[in-house]
């Protein structure tokens, strides 16, 4: 479904150039939930953004559903692939009502039956019509993220890119959103690429996981390997140990992986 080959992303030019991502390759099958994990600076969000078309300065090949992507994205692409961002407080425009937010993608792509689609999108994510004219500051974090998901799904895409969708949410709300995302994926046969730094979340929902460190690809592991804590690379093992909680003795053994 999605194939990324030798992806490289650079910021800046000439001597100031920063190679944020180098030589990353992976494949995602249709209907799969693929995880992309790493710490800050690993380049995982950068990879996602390059796929979404938010980044022009990339090299390599990206193929989605048989179509190879060029430098610019066309309208058809946007109907096929959408994105949910991390910060529910930043990804909704503070001066737009929920109605405005959900209407926008419909207006851009020329849909006319907006009222129905908006109400349907709201109920899909478990929100009633009374939320329609609220402003983002009148919504809780979980509700905002639901709106963000509704906005991503209203164009009926087949691929959803999720950039840390629950990192800014309370634990109990995270559970609701993860359940919602799982249900939607099953119901609509969606393909997900989920970026996260939280290994427990990834172990819960992703079938295959790519691990990144400092812009480079470390390894690809299966959900089974993650859950049984049997990755191959030392970096991944250290990450797993750290995810298990505070253990003073183990912390002394942490090393820097460059």
């Amino acid at each position: 479904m999605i194939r990324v080959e030798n992806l490289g992303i650079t910021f800046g030019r000439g001597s100031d150039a920063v190679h944020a991502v180098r030589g990353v390759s992976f494949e995602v099958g249709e209907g799969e939930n693929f995880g992309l994990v790493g710490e800050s600076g690993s380049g995982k969000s950068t990879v996602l953004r390059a796929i979404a078309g938010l980044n022009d300065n990339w090299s390599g090949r990206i193929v989605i559903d048989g179509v190879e992507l060029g430098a610019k994205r066309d309208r058809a692409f946007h109907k096929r692939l959408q994105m949910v961002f991390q910060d529910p407080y930043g990804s909704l425009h503070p001066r737009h009502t929920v109605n405005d937010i959900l209407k926008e993608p419909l207006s851009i792509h020329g849909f006319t039956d907006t009222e129905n689609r908006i109400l349907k999108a709201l109920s899909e994510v478990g929100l009633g019509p009374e939320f329609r004219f609220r402003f983002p500051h009148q919504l809780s974090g979980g509700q905002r993220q639901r709106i963000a998901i509704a906005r991503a799904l209203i164009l009926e895409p087949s691929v959803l890119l999720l950039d840390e969708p629950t990192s800014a949410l309370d634990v109990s709300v995270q559970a609701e959103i993860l359940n919602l995302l799982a249900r939607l994926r099953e119901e609509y046969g969606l393909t997900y690429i989920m970026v996260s730094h939280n290994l427990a979340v990834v172990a819960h929902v992703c079938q295959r996981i790519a691990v990144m460190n400092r812009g480079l690809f470390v390894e690809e592991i299966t959900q089974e390997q993650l859950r049984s804590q049997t990755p191959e690379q030392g970096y991944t093992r250290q990450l797993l140990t750290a995810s298990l909680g505070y253990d003073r003795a183990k912390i002394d053994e942490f090393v820097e992986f460059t």
Partner: protein
Amino acid sequence: MATKTLLDIENLNVSFDTPKGIVEAVRNVSFTLGQERLGLVGESGSGKSQTGRAILRLTASQGHISADKMDFDGIDLINADEKTLRGVRGSRISMIMQDPRYSLNPIMTVGHQVAEAYLVHSKSSKREARERAMEMLKTVHIREPEKVYKLYPHEVSGGMGQRIMIAMMLIPDPDIIIADEPTSALDVTVQLQVLALLDDMVRDRGMGLIFISHDLSLVASFCDRVLVMYGGQIVETLDAKALHEAKHPYTQGLLNCLPRLDGSHKILPVLERDPAWMIAQDTRP
């Protein structure tokens, strides 16, 4: 090790006036802090941060604090005047906040800020303060302290920034540290390294630590005791090792809805909030 009680709080209440009415952020909170690591856990809106701020009377001006008792080493914090409080804040009770990018002064070198923290609370020369600051940077495991001393906050990484914050807060040798989500903005490996540092410092100096966080499992693995907050109240007090024996349905619900690394929670049960949990309790010991 016999721990003496450093902080004794009884029936702390914090409320705010808003256009839509009075919001009670903290209700009937009572607990004691010894020379231990006490975790204060809750989701957003639980009142945990407001509790931490109220101890140092740092609540915003529209807030009202009241308590039957808020004693620190014989000082009545509730009724103390500003002068007494200034003597307590920073030098006897310190606070570490979440993001060093925002809590460090962006136009001062980090070394200077640590030295200033020393100068403010003791009568010493600038040179002595500088020396103490350099020592402190070494204590928090910063390599090449001479080089780091001259850096500005935007030039240091998140983990290093938090170490610097810890250095700043510890240099006056306080009795209590209140840490409000000190590691939430950090990567997981760095998080643990910073916590290890805090752990060592607290143990070596016999300090009390109040660790405020939303991360229940992290708090349980790091602290000695855990207080779970919901709706402004403490709903459960536990020994960290006895977390699995939690009795309150909210705590149990929180534990259940955490995804597990070993995948043992197949479908995350949704936390059903019982309105009964919001009813004011009497938690006086």
